[in-house]
């Protein structure tokens, strides 16, 4: 094909692709984008901050000592994380709708302008790609759905930085536009030709509110029934839902073995404790939540021995961490490290009972870790070994 013919084809194609001016709805544009964008920024900021907290809480040795009180702290931060991410879905979709015509801006011809154009396009592509990725993977993870081949934690954490960074960069680029648009009244033209901007914004806030209530209200006492789309009803054996069952963790056959002993190792030696030995120690009760990274949580009345009492049997002192290991032979969460400030907390238990009964197999029979303010995946179940680690 000759160059002339190619140009003709390109011109005909170009004429068929819409231009920004082809989109006539005056509902799109700066004022809609700025108003929705501000709330989208807030939602992303909340999700990022609470996500960093959750990530730090799951590191074997957190960079900062995280607080063991209040016991509901992680329940609140992770509930906010999932709620903010859920609210971001309608906000992101409406915001992207409002700027969709800009996708069709033709690249400028001059090299310098073209470079700037491509940089901006690239940064927006990073923003959209990472934002959609975070919302899709987060929502699917909360329903334990993994239709991909990458590890959720590593990917969601890496792209959280990409998303947060590209949001901040985008704010830097668009700040003058945002300030101008927010300074103007919401409506400029008389309504009557179609939906008003007020109607659109109102519907967007309503959409975000319904999404949050329908998925997250189960965490608020009295509102459980309106959480129509919650991943858990909040019910389960002994009144608490289960994240991973004994069958799922491949330990179901090991739980009622009369030869089970809790092995306790530390600087002062090693001891082995049977259930009867544990029951002969001072018993304590604590009302503590299981607060899952997936956003759900449920409280129970746990009974058992204090972690610090068990650690003291082998010479564990106030400055020592404790590593708790499960009967599980595989799985990323078969052991967890309890930092010293959690070990010393009087409510940190090696629990033997829930709701006054011996632990249900799915809750970690014969013995599990339960401590305040921790992610549920670190409340190790089916414990076989406790090791005092001198730091």
């Amino acid at each position, binding site marked *: 094909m000759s160059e002339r013919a190619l140009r003709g084809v390109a011109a005909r194609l170009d004429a068929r692709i819409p231009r920004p001016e082809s989109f006539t709805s005056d509902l799109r544009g700066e004022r809609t984008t700025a108003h929705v964008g501000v709330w989208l920024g807030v939602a992303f900021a909340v999700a990022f901050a609470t996500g960093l907290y959750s990530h730090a809480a799951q590191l074997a040795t957190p960079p900062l000592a995280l607080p063991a009180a209040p016991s509901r702290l992680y329940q609140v931060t992770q509930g906010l994380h999932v709620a903010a991410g859920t609210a971001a879905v309608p906000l992101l979709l409406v915001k992207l709708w409002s700027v969709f015509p800009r996708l069709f801006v033709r690249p400028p011809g001059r090299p310098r302008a073209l470079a700037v154009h491509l940089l901006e396009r690239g940064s927006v592509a990073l923003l959209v790609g990472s934002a*959609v990725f975070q919302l899709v993977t987060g929502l699917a993870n909360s329903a334990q*759905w993994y239709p991909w081949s990458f590890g959720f934690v590593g990917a969601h954490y*890496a*792209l959280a*930085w990409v998303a947060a*960074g590209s949001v*901040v*960069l985008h704010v830097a680029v668009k700040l003058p536009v945002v300030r101008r648009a927010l300074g103007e009244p919401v409506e400029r033209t008389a309504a009557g030709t179609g939906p008003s901007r007020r109607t659109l914004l109102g519907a967007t806030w309503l959409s975000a509110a319904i999404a949050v209530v329908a998925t997250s209200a189960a965490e608020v006492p009295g509102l459980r029934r309106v959480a129509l789309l919650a991943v858990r009803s909040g019910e389960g054996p002994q009144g608490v839902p289960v994240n991973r069952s004994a069958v799922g963790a491949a330990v179901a056959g090991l739980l009622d073995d009369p030869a089970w002993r809790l092995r306790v190792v530390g600087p002062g030696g090693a001891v082995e404790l049977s259930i009867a030995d544990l029951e002969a120690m001072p018993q304590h009760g604590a009302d503590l939540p299981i607060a899952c990274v997936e956003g759900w949580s449920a409280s129970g009345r746990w009974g058992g021995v204090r972690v610090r009492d068990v650690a003291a049997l082998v010479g564990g002192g106030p400055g020592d961490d404790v590593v708790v290991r499960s009967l599980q032979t595989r799985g990323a969460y078969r052991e967890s490290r309890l930092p010293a400030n959690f070990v010393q907390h009087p409510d940190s238990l090696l629990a033997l009972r829930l709701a006054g009964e011996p632990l249900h197999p799915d809750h970690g029979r014969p013995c599990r870790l339960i401590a305040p303010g921790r992610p549920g995946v670190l409340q190790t179940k089916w414990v076989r070994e406790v090791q005092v680690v001198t730091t």
Partner: protein
Amino acid sequence: MRTVRSVLGLAGVAGVGYGLLRLLRLPGDQVVAVVVWAAGGVVGHDGVLAPAVVALGVAATLLARWARPALAVLLVVLGPLTLVAVPVLGRFGARPDNPTLLDRPYLAGWLAIVGGALLVALGVALRDRRRLRRAEPGAPS
């Protein structure tokens, strides 16, 4: 303003850079999968979802003016909410050994929300029809 924008810009680039470094520390096949999913998000939105919404908008111009705001409300409320509900409606993560997971009647819940949204939209439509009739008596709606 200039300083604020420069600081924000640099912080943003640093955040993106750190995220990409974290990503590249994952095994190679996982990096590829993440990039495919992220690119898929852009293509899925810009190539499928957004054009579909534009098409709905064009179709709505064929309808009576008073009905359009109500339909816009319906789309903005139910569209994102339905996407949010996909993982629970499909119960893709359900496991036979764990009956406490995904244990609500999600279809009924979703239909209840649809019903509520329809009621709100109906209210908006009736309001707009009355207003339009009052503003332009005798005009075709």
